[in-house]
């Protein structure tokens, strides 16, 4: 199946598109691969081409596209915010991890929204958010259905927003079934970033994920449905690559169904020029009412997810900072401020779009960001003594790349891997608010410990005496001496100290166990 598509005559792809200036796809793909410093042969440039790559690692035109996009650049996600507008409720396929009946303001995961908007309301909402949050640089349409199953609403929204706020980057996230039909329209509205959710490239696997698709006025099921879906997804990806539109691939890791297969998916999308691959854990709980939730299909553990992401990283850029957000999310990736911008509140707002003010704010952010990168670089010397030792640390942060959150207030912990090569962001763990109203609850603390159980230390701005003792008992060292300092720089200083203690025989390095990926609701309003 993959091979058939893979060896597809480039001319047939070209025929499917009508844009002028279409170029040879294999040339473009090779060029994209070279741009990333990850030649199709794999190898040498790879270490520098993670999604945390900076301006030195990619050509200026690509850097320009990703530098302010929190979803396409791990480094940008600490500083820049995004918003989704829920203008696209209809969908043209059914996925076993999705249940459209479910809608809860306190729930944070894809496909969930509190209200749907008209394109006009969406445009007003974007202005309201842009005026309130100057670091909001990206507007995405991600459902709650499929943007391209609602093409009129989607493109009308893009048109309105590009008129009133031309500095905002536009992106969309699709299942890919209708993508080949709309690629030229996407290019016309200067949508720079398109995400396709691709969970399989083999219909044998796909039939266990997709019960049906709606195709040419019919509901198709099983193998036949999955075969059309994968063909359309990969054709759409190739057409995006031909036009120089950056494509990110989202894949849901479903243990026992597509976990091993995702390595093959990774190869298939990389060979077609995808810029970034985002493997996300399945979110599955009986109360969500999804097929997978009801039949007991489990999600992966933190270690399983990281092992798969690491295995694919040999081949291409991996995204590890995805928060699997709502289709109406607003704010930095780790936060959700959508409740501040309900239609009712927006209509009452006096909005003035201050393009100059936004620019000035973003320039200040840029300065902050460069200081952070310099701080990290300053601590790279002396790491060689780490040898094969690699540890994970958890960090409580409110953003900006700084350790600036109280342990008890953290809604999530960011996880960094420290080894001889430096500090690298490798993921995050959602936790329910452990501290509500100033007192800790023992059960909640257990949840936090389970979520960061694979970490050697947790960096916080502040922590109380009781949780400190419990963390120590669980083998996770609470570290509060780097409050309000840069994450990576502090982590590397701590790591070198840790290595020093090993060298002096004060401690023995031990591996940590696995950790849990939280499946329940993220309470966006609490605290």
């Amino acid at each position, binding site marked *: 199946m993959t091979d058939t598509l893979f060896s597809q005559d480039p001319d047939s792809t070209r025929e499917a598109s009508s844009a002028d200036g279409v170029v040879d796809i294999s040339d473009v793909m090779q060029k994209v691969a070279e741009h990333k410093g990850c030649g199709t042969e794999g190898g040498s440039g790879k270490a520098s081409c993670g999604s945390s790559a900076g301006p030195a690692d990619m050509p200026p035109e690509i850097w320009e596209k990703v530098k302010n996009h929190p979803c396409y650049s791990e480094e940008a996600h600490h500083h820049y915010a995004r918003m989704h507008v829920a203008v696209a409720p209809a*969908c043209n396929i059914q996925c076993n991890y999705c249940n459209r009946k479910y809608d809860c303001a306190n729930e944070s995961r894809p496909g969930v929204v509190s209200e749907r908007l008209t394109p006009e309301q969406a445009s007003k909402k974007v202005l309201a958010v842009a005026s309130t949050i100057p670091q909001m640089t990206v507007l995405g349409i991600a459902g709650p259905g499929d943007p391209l*199953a609602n093409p009129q609403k989607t493109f009308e929204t893009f048109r309105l927003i590009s008129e009133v706020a031309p500095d905002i980057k536009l992106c969309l996230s699709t299942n890919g079934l209708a993508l080949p039909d709309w690629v030229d329209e996407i290019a016309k509205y200067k949508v720079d970033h398109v995400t396709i959710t691709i969970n399989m490239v083999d219909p044998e696997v796909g039939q266990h994920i997709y019960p049906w698709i709606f195709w040419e*006025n019919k509901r198709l099921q099983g193998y036949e449905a999955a075969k059309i879906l994968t063909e359309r997804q990969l054709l759409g990806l190739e057409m995006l690559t031909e036009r120089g539109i950056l494509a990110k691939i989202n894949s849901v890791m479903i243990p026992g169904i597509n976990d091993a297969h995702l390595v093959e998916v990774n190869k298939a999308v990389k060979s077609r020029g995808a810029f970034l691959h985002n493997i996300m854990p399945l979110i599955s709980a009986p109360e969500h009412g999804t097929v997978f939730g009801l039949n007991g299909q489990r999600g992966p553990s933190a270690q399983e997810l990281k092992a798969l992401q690491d295995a694919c990283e040999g081949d291409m850029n991996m995204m590890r900072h995805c928060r699997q957000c709502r289709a109406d999310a607003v704010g930095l990736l780790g936060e959700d401020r959508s409740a501040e911008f309900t239609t009712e509140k927006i209509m009452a707002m006096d909005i003035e779009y201050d393009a100059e003010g936004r620019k000035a704010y973003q320039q200040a952010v840029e300065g902050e960001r460069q200081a952070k990168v310099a701080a990290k670089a300053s601590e790279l010397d002396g790491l060689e003594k780490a040898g094969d030792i690699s540890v994970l640390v958890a960090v409580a942060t409110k953003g900006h790349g700084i350790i600036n959150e109280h342990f008890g207030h953290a809604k999530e912990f960011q996880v960094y891997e420290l080894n001889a090569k430096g500090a690298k962001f490798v993921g995050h763990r959602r936790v329910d608010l452990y501290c509500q109203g100033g007192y800790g609850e023992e059960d909640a603390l257990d949840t936090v410990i389970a979520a960061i159980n694979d970490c050697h230390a947790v960096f916080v701005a502040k922590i109380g005496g009781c949780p400190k003792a419990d963390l120590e008992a669980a083998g996770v060292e609470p570290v509060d001496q780097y409050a309000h300092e840069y994450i990576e720089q502090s982590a590397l200083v701590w790591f070198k100290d840790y290595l020093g203690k090993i060298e002096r025989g004060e401690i023995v390095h031990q591996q940590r166990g696995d950790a849990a990926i939280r499946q329940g609701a993220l309470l966006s309003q609490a605290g």
Partner: protein
Amino acid sequence: MAYKIVASQCTNCTACEALCPNMAISEAKGTFVIDPALCTECIGHFEDPQCVAICPVDDTCVLDASVPRYQPA
């Protein structure tokens, strides 16, 4: 008979509205409804009733037994 939408199950996803060949589907009181006078069960248009085929919730677009079957002219 015409098709009808079980209001308690409708998610308001709008998918059926655009597909109906008879423009029989519209939003009313926070959910979607089918006008039985306009519904032709898609006979003469498509093999399958489009609202049934696209609806994300099973058994939500169902035949309405209270009206007679559509008779193509």
